[in-house]
């Protein structure tokens, strides 16, 4: 009898806590088009796999009449579960409890699950939906954030860390997502900023809406803080599951291997790239024509479009693709595209994912704005990332590889393992027009018909240097291949480099230009 009454009491306590902030606040949450924290966790994890910890944690604030207040779970739900059978650690801030505000115990729950994730070497997924620091808890709240940021940093490169922004994430709180590997946002729901519209209006007199300041589109398209954009929470969870499927659980493992599947569009590969190097095409079509099932999972799809990054599989094994995109900004490297690619390459390297690079680059973007924005130091990041990466690196030059762009895009000189070029590849110090204008300047200027001479000289240069054979003659590329052979060559390269092992010189850490 005594036992059953204890169990009944336990059930009552638990039922109460599971309601979170209660009916009214839950209704409010729904009215904003948002799911509750618990609904989010169930939507994300395998059915029935979620195991919760610290449900009975209570806040420790006494000031400002906080002592009497009950905050179920202290505004955050933490636990472990599985996604497609693979273990993950999860926390989800509960906006229905004190606006998901972060107090000391709230942060302790998060850091506990982060510690589990790190020591048990499983991915961490954090669902952010919080009004920010719990002001009543003062510096304890700041301490909480600091402890989280510190763990994000320790875990970086050891376990994949994913941040999902499903509500406000403002002030210092943004720095946890910023330190993680992938940030997911949902249209009209995610809001991220350091200082909000109110502060901006007060101190700067500028009026801006939350959406225009730090909405999902802003971070996907302008700031580059977000990696995946979704129209709904449902779509967002599907994206997270897909990502988890592509990546390993930690830095000592390789991603899971699936059964090889031929690309659906393999037969189209010969017709994708126009011969004329000034004409655009969508490089994603090339990736799809070589990837298993033509499945390409693009990262940062709407930011810095002149470079394309994302995951795919070759004969069942995950690969990270990096490709210049002639469709957008002619495929140049600029401040944003360099940063985008560099970070992605480092993720792949940290988690044992081979990097496959498709090159079609005219060079770097000219402009005072680019130079002043630090194109030199941002551009250097891409050199650093390729050079530093010890995973298998396979590069295919599809068409143009001019000048500094040739060097930067996974060239032999940055220790690519295999470099292939299509027959129409132009590997040269610059495009024929620019090169002819410099090299034959005198002849062109002194000619009776300068335009005709220029045309002839451009043609002369094109014939002599705008091809893959000069580079091949020095061994800078390993083979000239037909477009239709690309998948075969990549698959073979991955097979032979599977046990690749090289050591970087011993050091505490390198100093990439950031």
């Amino acid at each position, binding site marked *: 009898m005594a036992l059953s009454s204890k169990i009944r009491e336990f059930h009552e306590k638990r039922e109460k806590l599971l309601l979170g902030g209660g009916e009214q606040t839950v209704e409010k949450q729904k009215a904003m088009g948002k799911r509750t924290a618990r609904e989010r966790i169930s939507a994300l994890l395998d059915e029935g796999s979620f195991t919760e910890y610290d449900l009975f944690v209570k806040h420790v604030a006494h000031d400002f009449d906080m002592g009497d207040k009950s905050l179920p779970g202290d505004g955050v739900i933490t636990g472990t579960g599985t996604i497609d059978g693979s273990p993950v650690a999860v926390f989800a801030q509960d906006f229905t409890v004190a606006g998901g505000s972060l107090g000391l115990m709230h942060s302790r729950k998060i850091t506990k699950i982060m510690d589990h994730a790190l020591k048990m070497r499983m991915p961490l997924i954090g669902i952010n939906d919080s009004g920010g620091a719990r002001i009543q808890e003062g510096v304890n709240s700041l301490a909480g954030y600091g402890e989280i940021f510190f763990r994000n940093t320790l875990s970086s490169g050891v376990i994949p860390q994913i941040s999902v922004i499903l509500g406000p994430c403002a002030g210092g709180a943004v720095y946890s997502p910023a330190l993680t590997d992938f940030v997911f946002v949902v249209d009209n729901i995610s809001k991220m900023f350091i200082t909000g519209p109110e502060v901006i209006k007060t*101190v*700067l*007199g*500028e009026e801006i809406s939350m959406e225009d300041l730090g909405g999902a*589109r802003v971070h*996907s*398209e*302008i700031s580059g803080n977000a990696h995946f*954009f979704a129209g709904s929470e449902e779509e967002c969870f599907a994206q997270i599951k897909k990502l988890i499927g592509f990546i390993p659980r930690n830095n000592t493992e390789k991603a899971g291997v699936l059964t090889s599947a031929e690309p659906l569009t393999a037969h189209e590969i010969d017709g994708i790239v126009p011969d004329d*190097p*000034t*004409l*655009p095409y969508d490089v994603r079509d090339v990736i799809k024509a070589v990837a298993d099932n033509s499945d390409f999972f693009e990262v940062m*799809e*709407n930011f810095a*479009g*002149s470079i394309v990054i994302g995951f795919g599989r070759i004969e069942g094994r995950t690969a990270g693709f990096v490709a210049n995109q*002639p*469709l*957008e*900004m*002619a*495929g*140049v490297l600029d401040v*944003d595209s360099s940063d985008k690619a560099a970070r992605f390459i480092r993720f792949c390297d940290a988690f044992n994912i081979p990097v496959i690079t498709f090159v079609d680059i*005219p*060079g770097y*973007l*000219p*402009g*005072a*704005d680019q130079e*002043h924005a630090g194109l030199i130091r941002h551009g250097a990041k891409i050199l650093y990332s390729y050079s530093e990466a010890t995973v298998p690196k396979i590069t295919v030059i599809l068409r143009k590889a*001019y*000048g500094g762009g040739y060097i930067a895009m996974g060239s032999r000189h940055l220790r690519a393992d295999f470099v292939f070029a299509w027959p129409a590849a132009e590997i040269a110090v*610059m*495009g*024929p*027009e*620019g090169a002819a*204008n410099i090299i034959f300047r005198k002849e062109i200027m002194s000619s009776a018909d300068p335009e005709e001479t220029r045309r002839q000289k451009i043609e002369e240069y094109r014939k002599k240097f705008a091809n893959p054979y000069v580079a091949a003659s020095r061994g800078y590329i390993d083979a000239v291949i037909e477009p239709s052979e690309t998948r075969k060559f990549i698959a073979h390269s991955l097979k032979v480099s599977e046990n690749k092992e090289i050591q970087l010189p011993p050091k505490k850490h390198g100093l990439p230009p950031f």
Partner: protein
Amino acid sequence: MKKTSQEGKLNIDGTVYRTRLSRKFIKRAPFSPSDPFLLTSIIPGTILDIMVKPGQTVVKGEALMILEAMKMQNVLKSPAGGTVRMIAVKKGDRVGKGSPLLRIG
């Protein structure tokens, strides 16, 4: 998500490429060299005080006005020596970032 870029052409090292141009590229501000005789607002704020009058001779580094921004009173100093030719603001005016304030001739 709808694409905000538009069709265009881009010249890289003398070759003209047909491509889509990003919104960032289209909206980029053209470079303009700074005018060494023009005092501009470094930050949005309010003009608290103006210490000089048109026609007055000033030396480089002389305090010209006080701009309150983010609760700080910033003393704006003369970018050059010369005569105050024009004062574009009056006490109490709110100014945006980069607004012209005063010209030295």
